[in-house]
């Protein structure tokens, strides 16, 4: 049987976008304990439920962007907001990023039968490659977040009491040191350039 085209699949996905996003959100919620998932789903106030609202606000635009790439910055921003939260929560790296692969499951749950009926399996594989590329991008963002955590830890360490030496304020020394460096660079000191 001849396989259908990606355009036809995108049409179906676009039609079912609402259900797919909803299913995906449900799958993301299910990575948390049941009481928590319940709360993330129910509480609608953005400020009373920062994690739930982050998921809610990011999922739709991410799927839209996968269907019809328009604004890579918006896409990146929403990916970042989802990953930034999970990168510091109680997840291993694979569990944190599993949610992007869960989107494939959500799509199959919603339009799987129709895909088989209309011979769109190949098109679905093609679309899933987009999801895979998003997951790869997610690895980058995850690593950036983790590196940021370590950077903050390092900065915190620098401010600790045992850094005090010679009876001088540590942050004062750091600040003075930076000034020295800036000044030396400004004067074209060859050893620093």
């Amino acid at each position, binding site marked *: 049987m001849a396989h259908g085209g990606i355009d036809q699949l995108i049409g179906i996905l676009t039609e079912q976008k609402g259900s797919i996003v909803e299913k995906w959100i449900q799958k993301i919620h299910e990575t948390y304990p049941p009481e*928590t998932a319940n709360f993330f789903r129910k509480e609608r106030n953005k400020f009373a439920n920062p*994690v739930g609202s982050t998921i809610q606000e990011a999922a739709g635009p991410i799927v839209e962007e996968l269907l019809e790439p328009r604004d890579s910055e918006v896409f990146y921003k929403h990916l970042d907001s989802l990953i930034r939260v999970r990168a510091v*929560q*109680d997840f291993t790296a694979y569990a944190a990023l599993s949610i992007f692969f869960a989107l494939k499951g959500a799509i199959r749950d919603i339009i799987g039968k129709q895909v088989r009926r209309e011979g769109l399996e190949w098109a679905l594989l093609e679309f899933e490659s987009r999801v895979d590329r998003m997951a790869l991008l997610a690895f980058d963002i995850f690593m950036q977040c983790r590196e940021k955590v370590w950077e903050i830890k390092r900065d915190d360490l620098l401010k600790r009491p045992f850094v*005090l030496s010679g009876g001088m304020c540590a942050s004062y020394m750091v600040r*003075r040191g930076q000034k020295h460096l800036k000044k030396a660079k400004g004067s074209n000191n060859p050893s620093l350039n």
Partner: protein
Amino acid sequence: MKDLTPQEMLRIDLHPPKTPWMDIPVKIKPGVYCYPAKPEKLEIVGMPNPHKWSPLDDDWGLPEDWKEIVLQGMRERLDKHRSFKIFMDICVRCGACADKCHFFLGSGDPKNMPVVRAELIRSVYRGEFTRAGKILGRLAGGRKLTEDVLKEIWYYMFQCTECRRCSLFCPYGIDTAEVTIIGRELINLLGLNINWIQEPVANCYETGNHLGLLPHTFKQNVEFMCMDIEEFVGIKIDPPFNRKGAEILFVTPSGDVFADPGIYTLMGYLLLFEHLGLDYTWSTYACEGGNFGFFTSLEMAQRLNAKIYHEAKRLGVKWILGGECGHMWRVVHQYMATFNGPADFLEEPVSPITGTKFENAKATKMVHISEFTADLIKHNKLKLDKSRNDHLKVTFHDSCNPSRGMGLFEEPRYIIKNVCNNFYEMPENTIREQTFCCGSGAGLNAGENMEIRLRGGLPRANAVKYVHERFGVNMLACICAIDRAVLSASMSYWVPEVKVTGVSELVGNALIMEGENERSVDLRGEPIPGRGEEVSEDV
């Protein structure tokens, strides 16, 4: 997960189990727990069972009779603190508090729901102290105290910042922070404190401040700030130390003396006092307003707090002015007068500039710098150029203790509006008495537990992000030294475009000082946009 084989990896179920909380064993994880207290730091203040141990070991080196020690400690506290007994008995587990904790909201861990966190101890109370719990066990919500239970309690007592947001929503008025306070006291009977709390406690006991700065170093650090003021503002300040006969003793957290950006807040204080020609003194002995003893035991809080009145008496001042700090004000406002008072050798505080009587400070004789400054502004006693802060779009974070602990809501806002032209509130359910904790209070501002700090900081950061995106807010003001340090970390992860400042730093930048220079840079030495000069590179 490094112990899993590839076959096991393929069988991983990503869904958490649906078992009741009592059946989910605690897993102590790096990034969440703080390092244990060094034995010598416990010895300095005579705390029991100093020993070396690690939270990741099976054997925590507990004394043989550890269980009896804890149960006896609980028994004594149930007798001594009526509130603790009531909080153990009356919770109906309605869940009103469940989703109000920043740690639960940020982590999604159900054991961070205040009701469950308190239930960790309450279940032991039922299982070991009540008849129903002893007979019916789990049916009555009770369980026995075992090593695993103790470890679970330890883990979660250090995932509560005692911010008291949950207590606002409890229909019975249960204050989960008080349960945490008692929980930590019980932990301390076994020598299981964390070092981030214990070392400051020992330092404070020995030298008067958390950092262990000796008097000459403390003085030197303040003088460094004066050098910066001379460079950035163009005036020379010679602050008084340990001056007998001064009218006012000024006490602030030592974080203002060493930590960025607290040091700029300190420069704000120095400018304000110079502007007024205030008759005051710093003390190199009462050189710490903060009190990590409060995160150890109420007795330790009392011991470390005592120096403030002692020093006020020694110097013969009339009253005490306190800087921007969080838990210092909880201790001062709610405990100091009974801990170490009555301070009948002091006078009821009266502002020497405006004549305002601070009747609210009649008992403690200690006035908050925001009350003092707001009163000065109200009486037109400060020369201010608020346009110097025009490049800032400011929002205000109510620190838990001054807001929920002492009702200080309006004064800081009044000050900010008088020294800045651009002020924006965060959403209503994240400010004033409903404020979200910074995520690192109550002695949890260590570095090794950064993941839990960032989780706990998310609800606050989420509201900051909103005002940043909506109004372009780029500065988060607060009146707490721990906030200044930890919100900087939290912002750099969640909303890196937003910096953190103390309210007094904003005041210092706006103050028109006699003999000042063109004020082209702010107190951080950074150029003020539209005021001409680049930052001076001279060192």
